[in-house]
């Protein structure tokens, strides 16, 4: 799969060199960022069975962290000046901050039933949104952050910059994919799956299920933070409107469509769902404006109903491995 990813990447770069792949590159960078989010969710949900509804907030934390650390230092009264740190520092700190946030949430909830984690991650999404909107001296509120620096921006002509950024995203994605596959096959990964399939059994075999869940939750969150940083430096402009619950939902859709538990599924699902999402938004452009708004709602309804259909009829997704454990009640 890593080789396939790199082969597709090389193809896109050749196309771009021929002057025909600009949109494909743009699309692939976004899909690659979503694939990172889906890989992060796969560690949490696919490997370990942890339900996270705060993906967009971890994504936002990563994006804002990296942006604030790398922005050029422009002293202005009463506002965060930016530290002008290198891109790589931004990426690492983005992952760390998201991991820290996840550690806080996880330590409160992961000893309990999964429902509590779901509620608390929902709440965290709300808090992050409020912080971004209200702490304007740091985040510039609803206006958002502009002029986020791009790595090695001056090295490339503007026309070719996306090709370079695509390589960065693809490399990080391939590396993450390879790492997560290693994790999946390691004893630690097996223990995670044991927790997912039957937590009591895993505990009775002497596994510390809290620590395992905690580690998986934090690791997944770090990947989401990383994805956020990549997003911020790609668009160079972020605002609270970029990080909405719908995004969380799309990532879930990607993982479930691709197949929970499978890293290949996460990547394939991300490309597929992002393709459908972008494709249908292009479709919406053909409608007159008063219908275009209605169409955008219909599109979300369609995604929601597709999710229901997947859960009912294709619970394994395209490449999935989970057959979810049954806990029959009614």
């Amino acid at each position, binding site marked *: 799969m890593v080789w396939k990813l790199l082969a597709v990447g090389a193809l896109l770069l050749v196309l771009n060199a021929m002057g025909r792949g600009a949109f494909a590159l743009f699309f692939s960078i976004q899909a690659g960022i979503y694939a990172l989010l889906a890989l992060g969710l796969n560690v949490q949900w696919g490997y370990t069975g942890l339900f996270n509804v705060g993906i967009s907030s971890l994504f936002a934390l990563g994006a804002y962290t990296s942006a604030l650390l790398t922005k050029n230092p422009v002293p202005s009264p009463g506002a965060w000046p930016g530290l002008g740190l290198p891109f790589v520092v931004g990426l690492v700190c983005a992952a760390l901050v998201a991991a820290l946030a996840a550690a806080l949430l996880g330590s409160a909830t992961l000893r309990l039933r999964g429902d509590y984690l779901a509620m608390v991650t929902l709440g965290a999404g709300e808090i992050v949104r409020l912080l971004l909107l209200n702490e304007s001296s740091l985040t510039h509120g609803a206006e958002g952050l502009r002029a986020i620096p791009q790595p090695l921006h001056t090295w490339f002509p503007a026309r070719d910059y996306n090709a370079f950024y695509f390589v960065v995203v693809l490399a990080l994605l391939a590396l993450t994919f390879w790492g997560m596959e290693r994790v999946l096959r390691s004893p630690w990964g097996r223990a995670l799956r044991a927790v997912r399939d039957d937590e009591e059994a895993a505990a009775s075999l002497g596994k510390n299920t809290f620590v395992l869940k905690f580690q998986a939750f934090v690791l997944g969150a770090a990947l989401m933070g990383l994805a956020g940083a990549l997003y911020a430096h790609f668009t160079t402009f972020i605002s609270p409107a970029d990080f909405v619950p719908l995004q969380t939902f799309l990532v879930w859709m990607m993982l479930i469509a691709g197949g929970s538990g499978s890293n290949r599924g996460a990547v394939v699902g991300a490309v597929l769902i992002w393709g459908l999402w972008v494709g249908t938004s292009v479709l919406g452009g053909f409608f007159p404006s008063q219908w275009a708004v209605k169409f955008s709602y219909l599109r979300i*309804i369609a995604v*929601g109903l597709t999710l229901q259909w997947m859960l009912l009829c294709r*619970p394994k997704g395209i490449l999935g491995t989970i057959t979810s454990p049954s*806990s029959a009640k009614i």
Partner: protein
Amino acid sequence: MSLWNDFLHSLPQLLAYGLVNAGVLALGAVGLALIYRIFNFVHFAHGDLMTLGAYWGFLFNVTLRLPWLLAFVLALPATIVCALFIDRTFYRPLRRQHSVVLLISSAGMALVLRNLVRLFWGQSVRSYDLDFHRAASVLPGVRLTPEELVIVGFALATALFLFVLLRYTRLGKALRALADDVDLAAGCGVSLAWATRWTWVLGAGLAATGGIVLGVEDHLLHPLMGWNVLLSLFAAVVLGGLAHPYGALLGALIIGISQELFAFFLPQYRPALALVVLIVLLLWRPQGLLGQRT
């Protein structure tokens, strides 16, 4: 210290607002707790079910120009039919799987409901066709509108109704039995299909009422109104103890009042209090105030 003095001065008023807020939350939280007890999953679409109920009320009250009482009463069966349809089509086939699958399904359903509301009624703010009254002095230092007084009375009536229902009726007995042990209840002749239906009738009916009451309290309706209170509902239900029938009422009371007190100092972070309460509670007493440690 003048902020503190202001706070003490407006305390009676804040408590009164808190009581109104608690009334709204209680209507949602009780249904949420009921559904949790019977089906063993957190119904993420509950907030949006409230929104749907509020907009059904709007359809009957404003679009069809019916008198408000009739319109609001009609909104209940409309919402209940929707909930029964959703349960039958989407939730029921998933019930034998892990409860988290139902959680995902209901989170997806929340999005579908919210966007259906947007599709039919648009994104903009709406309002019921009511003669909203001005606030009048009810107690020294407390000014409330007649609508707000009705809300408080209504929540109290609902609490009483629920108590009587769970305590003295056949349905109540069946629901309590199901919540304790499904297999045992089924073995004793409780019809699961019947009890399931009634759970949704009660849950969705209360949610619709809550949504309408929220729309009346705020004087406005918008597609996110229910989703925005969902976190407070969660906090209220967990606070009371997820598995305790009247816990949700107590939880709603505490969350409702403390939200208003907190909002006096940090209005822009009003929704954050629910999360803080939730986290503190999960660390300190996860079984809730009324629950027993298992």
